[in-house]
């Protein structure tokens, strides 16, 4: 294997991992506040189509990214209104959000199928980006890649080192105790859910503006669900989520390039890899029930009503 090949693989892994990392980090914060939003796939798709539409209308990729984040937040707000204000079942509402997002995105995306679009431009750093090998691997990416990487320590610092982060975690562990201390449980959960929506929207934008700059129905192909599984895999720790996302990036790339490497395996078997790998890591990590219990937010998925 030539160094050029290895550099190309590393670049590809980064691009495949970025949407998983973005969506996963958002969901991690949401879940830390005790809210389980299974609508990641739907929010990603709405973000992807909205980002694409905005970028092709304005010609500006960054506008697309912003619109995608806002749309992700809007769909998350719908989820939050149902689950936090109207106290609906979080699992069922999350499923509804995914079904709705899939339908809405294909409805809105109809005119954009097959339309070409310029890829989100890389942030060229003069000098560094032109270095051989290291340049493209480390310094040749677009803004969203760096945003996703910067978000990992930022989220970890916020959750573990700041007072608002502590309050957010307390809301996820025991909303009753947090409520008794006077913290606005519902408002905090709204904020955490909206953050998750914005990050899912960004993940969608990355898919339709950078990963494959086009819109196709259902283009997330289960990545939202993989991101949900990665949060469990990471035992709700941002650093481990980074590891998991890049591991899965590698699996996704393996699936794309195995045939190029001369492996005579039908494409369908290779396409199964990410899904089977998801099941495998879930089993590996969940096997240790104590570990999940110690790390999972204690109130996750439960309805909180101050009177009851």
């Amino acid at each position, binding site marked *: 294997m030539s160094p050029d090949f290895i550099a190309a693989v590393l670049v590809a892994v980064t691009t495949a991992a970025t949407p998983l990392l973005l969506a996963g980090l958002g969901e991690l914060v949401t879940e830390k506040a005790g809210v389980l939003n*299974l609508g990641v796939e739907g929010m990603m798709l709405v973000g992807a189509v909205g980002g694409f539409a905005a970028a092709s209308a304005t010609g500006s990729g960054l506008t697309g990214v912003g619109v995608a984040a806002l749309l992700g937040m809007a769909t998350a707000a*719908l989820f939050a209104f*149902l689950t936090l204000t*109207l*106290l*609906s*079942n979080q*699992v*069922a*509402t999350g*499923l*509804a*959000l995914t*079904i*709705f*997002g*899939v*339908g*809405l995105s*294909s*409805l809105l995306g*109809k005119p954009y199928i097959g339309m070409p679009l310029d890829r989100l431009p890389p942030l060229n750093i003069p000098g560094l980006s032109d270095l051989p090998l290291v340049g493209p691997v480390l310094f040749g990416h677009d803004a969203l890649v760096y945003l996703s990487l910067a978000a990992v320590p930022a989220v970890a610092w916020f959750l573990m080192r700041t007072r608002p982060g502590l309050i957010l975690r307390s809301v996820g562990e025991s909303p009753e105790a947090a409520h008794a201390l006077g913290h606005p449980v519902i408002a905090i959960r709204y904020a955490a859910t909206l953050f998750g929506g914005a990050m899912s929207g960004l993940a969608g934008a990355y898919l339709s503006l950078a990963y494959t700059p086009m819109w196709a*129905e259902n283009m997330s*192909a*289960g990545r939202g*669900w993989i991101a*949900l*599984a990665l949060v*469990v895999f990471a035992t709700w720790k941002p650093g481990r989520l980074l590891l998991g996302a890049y591991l899965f990036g590698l699996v996704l790339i393996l699936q794309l390039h195995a045939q190029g490497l001369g492996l005579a395996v*039908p494409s*369908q*078997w290779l*396409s*199964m890899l990410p*899904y*089977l790998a*998801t*099941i495998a890591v*879930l*089993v590996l990590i*969940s*096997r240790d*029930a104590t570990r*999940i219990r110690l790390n999972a937010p204690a109130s996750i998925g439960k309805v909180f*009503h101050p*009177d*009851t």
Partner: protein
Amino acid sequence: MRLRLEARGAPSAAMAWATPPAAVLATLVAGSVLFAGLGFDPLQSLYSFFIQPLTNAYGIGELAVKGAPLIICAVGLSIGFRANVWNIGAEGQLTMGAICGGGVALALPDAGWWLLPVMVVAGAAGGMAWAAIPAFLRTRFNANEILTSLMLSYVAVLILSYLVHGPWRDPAGFNFPESAMFPDTGMLPVLWEGTRLHAGVLLAVAVVLAGWLLVSRAFLGFQIAVAGMAPAAAGYAGFRGKRLIWLSLLIGGGLAGLAGLGEVAGPIGQLRPTVSPGYGFTAIIVAFLGRLHPLGIVPAGLLVALSYIGGETVQIELGMPVAVAGVFQGMLLFFLLASDVLVRYRVRLTRPGELVA
């Protein structure tokens, strides 16, 4: 003045029955806004969507043809949902049922009358086997069944795609990714000439009756309800939680497999890369809309089936994207979940500062 939610002592039965029709009504209103936003005449669109398909025999037959798999899947899922077992991989179990049942038909093209019963058993067994994987992973390794059953759906669809592109492709099929047609003995007979209404509809009726007996008359149904509403109480009463997880998933998977078999041995007649327009996922909506009760699932299934047919009609008549059906289905579930709050809570107006009991 502000709105306040007050927990009811017991869920309101009246609201439980009133909210699904209210949700349907709200969906119609939101749907006409959506149609208007897309630049179509809302009344004309709603007519094409919900009424026109029912104005001829073919449309009514289609209602039953599309309602049957939704109802069969939803009855199976509702049993799991009652026990808080979230099998959302019915689409994969349905696909596996189609593969196993269809595989039998392809392997035995000269079989006699007994072929169809064997296919039905193979289809249900295939769906059960596929659902047994998440059941095993959940009970043995504590792995979340929501994620594993969903991932297995993608895998099942890929297996079907591999089979019809490869080993099971019809050699005389002009290279289309389709299997050979099933022999006549492997087809569900058409019940109503001039429509596609087939004997699979009778399977749906049988499933609804069996499901109704299970939830209302059987001890197992009671155990499932207790496990869902009060897991701790179920534990103290000695109901074995793992057994209920297994049963919920096996029943859900077996019925989804049956629905898949009904599709390939009914309207389709062969194996193709796509054997279902997402019935397994949409059945989740049907289960909730039917209040997780087999008798409620029947009208819910027919209504959602109508949204599929309506989606096709507005596509042909008005050139609207067929995805509009999915938007309707999602909205329906949103409105239903939103109105559910009225079942468990009372809405009260309070003035600031007023003491509430």
